[in-house]
């Protein structure tokens, strides 16, 4: 699908490049000593090859459609004062640079590489270290950010910007990047029709992925690990989340994914492992969740009573302390054909579907919801007794929150 979409673009790009493109070389031993000089001489669609070395370019503004290639990772140092590269032309390619030490400011959003209101920009195979914002796109259209590594090491959220930051952009392709130590690994606000694929985002101060007001986007096969607060996807619709892994997002307010005000979306084939809460959802509607796996989370799924029309089918819940938690008795969602390892029913007709419904919300989890300090009684005999009696005669737990066709064996994924 993506290849098919890309192919015409690639063809156009190949033929559109003028045959007269020159190559300029920048380096210690070359005629041109710095990149800014080369940019002045260069004609549109030229290629500038930058040799190894450290370049103090202050703020390098690219105002022509240029291909900027780094040979053996030349360093562009922002000296903690400047924005390293600002892209102010279309069709720019930046490839193979080490971009480090951008300025930090609470007024200006300094970035390692910033795209300002442009399209067809490719940023590929760069290494960004200690930048305030890493790669920043405002009003970027059809930009590709591929195989970059971004690393920052600030301790305070205020001192740190986002790794890949996209604002009011469209048709972005963010693939194969590794982001760590930033405030948010990948940040999307008002970004549409975009793809986030095969990235790794870990040990960021706040969210691995922060996603707001961004419709019709897909994120697939990413790994979000060990982020301060997990992943937040909010106020968006038509979002597709496929085969991502959400791992070890610990802490009081950390979630595998926090879903808030999401509608018409699909969540399929994701793995949630060892998070405080696998998914926390609030005000979510018309979302289909299939073939996800929840392993060893504190809460597999926390679903607030404000959610409706959520279809939860063919998911695996294995080794979670609590499978499902909720805060009210209203249930407008459908739980069906899931595998729950805590299910104790039987299957007399051997059709691999349990004969009695499973209630994933335990009474004790309702008690904790109302009175958090009751956590002190966790796994004591009295809570087991409470849960048992509640299973026979539900009084506190929502009567309709049940899986009528629980599977006897885990779903094969």
């Amino acid at each position, binding site marked *: 699908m993506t290849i098919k979409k890309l192919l015409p673009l690639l063809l156009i790009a190949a033929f559109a490049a003028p045959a007269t493109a020159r190559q300029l070389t920048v380096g210690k031993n070359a005629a041109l000593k710095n990149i800014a000089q080369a940019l002045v001489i260069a004609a549109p669609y030229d290629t500038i090859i930058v040799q190894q070395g450290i370049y103090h370019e202050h703020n390098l503004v690219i105002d022509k459609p240029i291909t900027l290639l780094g040979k053996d990772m030349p360093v562009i140092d922002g000296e903690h004062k400047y924005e390293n590269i600002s892209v102010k032309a279309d069709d720019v390619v930046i490839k193979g640079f080490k971009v480090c030490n951008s300025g930090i400011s609470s007024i200006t959003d300094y970035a390692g590489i910033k795209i300002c209101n442009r399209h067809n920009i490719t940023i590929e195979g760069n290494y960004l270290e200690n930048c305030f914002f890493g790669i920043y796109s405002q009003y970027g259209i059809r930009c590709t950010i591929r195989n970059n590594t971004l690393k920052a090491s600030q301790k305070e959220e205020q001192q740190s910007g986002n790794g890949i930051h996209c604002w009011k952009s469209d048709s972005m392709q963010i693939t194969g990047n590794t982001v760590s130590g930033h405030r948010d690994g990948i940040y999307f606000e008002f970004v549409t029709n975009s793809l986030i694929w095969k990235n790794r985002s870990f040990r960021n101060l706040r969210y691995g992925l922060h996603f707001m007001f961004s419709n019709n986007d897909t994120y697939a096969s990413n790994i979000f690990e060990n982020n301060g607060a997990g992943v937040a996807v909010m106020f968006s619709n038509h979002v597709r989340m496929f085969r991502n892994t959400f791992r070890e997002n610990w802490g009081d307010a950390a979630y595998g994914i926090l879903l808030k005000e999401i509608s018409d979306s699909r969540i399929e084939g994701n793995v949630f492992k060892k998070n405080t809460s696998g998914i926390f959802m609030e005000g979510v509607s018309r979302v289909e969740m299939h073939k996800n796996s929840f392993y060893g989370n504190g809460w597999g799924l926390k679903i607030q009573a404000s959610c409706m029309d959520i279809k939860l089918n063919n998911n695996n819940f294995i*080794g979670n302390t609590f499978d499902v938690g909720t805060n009210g008795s209203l249930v407008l969602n459908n739980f069906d054909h899931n595998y729950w390892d805590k299910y104790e029913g039987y299957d007399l007709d051997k059709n691999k579907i349990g004969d009695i419904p499973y209630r994933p919300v335990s009474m004790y989890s309702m008690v904790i919801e109302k009175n958090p300090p009751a956590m002190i009684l966790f796994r004591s005999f009295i809570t087991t007794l409470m849960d048992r009696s509640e299973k026979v005669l539900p009084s506190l737990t929502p009567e309709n929150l049940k899986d009528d066709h629980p599977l006897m064996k885990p779903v094969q994924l």
Partner: protein
Amino acid sequence: MRKIVKYILLDILKNKIVLVYTAFLLLITLSVFSLEDNTQKGMLTMLNLELFIVPLVSIIFSTIYIYNSSEFIELLVSQPIRRRSIWLSIFSGLAGALALAFIAGSGVPMLLFERSVISMMMIGLGVMLSVIFVSIAMLAAVTTRDKAKGIGMSILLWLYFSLIFDGIVLFLLFQFADYPIEKAMIGVTALNPIDLGRILVLLKMDVSALMGYTGAIFKDFFGTQKGVLLSFFVMLLWIALPLLYSLRKFNHKDL
């Protein structure tokens, strides 16, 4: 004193109940670990059993044993032996036998299946609970001469520590839901050795769910070296206080 302890230990072994208890623990531990493919889950099942069965067996067996050996105690008292050493010997014999039974029945297989800090803590907890409930049983047995009353009291005490206490805690939690009682709760857990042990092991094991605000406060306290040492000390108090009180009663008792 050593002679009496030896005699009591032999007597308990001859009695065979402790051997059956050991075999039972062994059977349960082995079946739990071989049935569960996930050792973490196995450990949780073991924790539940440990908090339930170990106190029950310890307290009931010890109470009955003391009542049944009342004639033997009378005989010993008629000898030139101090009452203090008689009583402490009985305690040592019982505590030693039950702790050994636990180590042999549950501890060793647990270590074989999972060699970790958690299993070491579980074994420590099991031994502690065995000894604590022997000590409580001694107090129950010394307070009344009536065997039925004494055993009844033991059962009630067990019920109190494993069920009623938690019920009261839950009730209090809801009564004082509007107040910041998390810190006070740490103090309350010290009032029940079973709860104390449970929380100590859980903080090592099932942290994810305990991560809320309460969990954070508990972890702040019990997660530290100081907290663990303090809880160990509280457990020792739970052994010493009932034992010393029962010893005082026994010293003045008209047999």
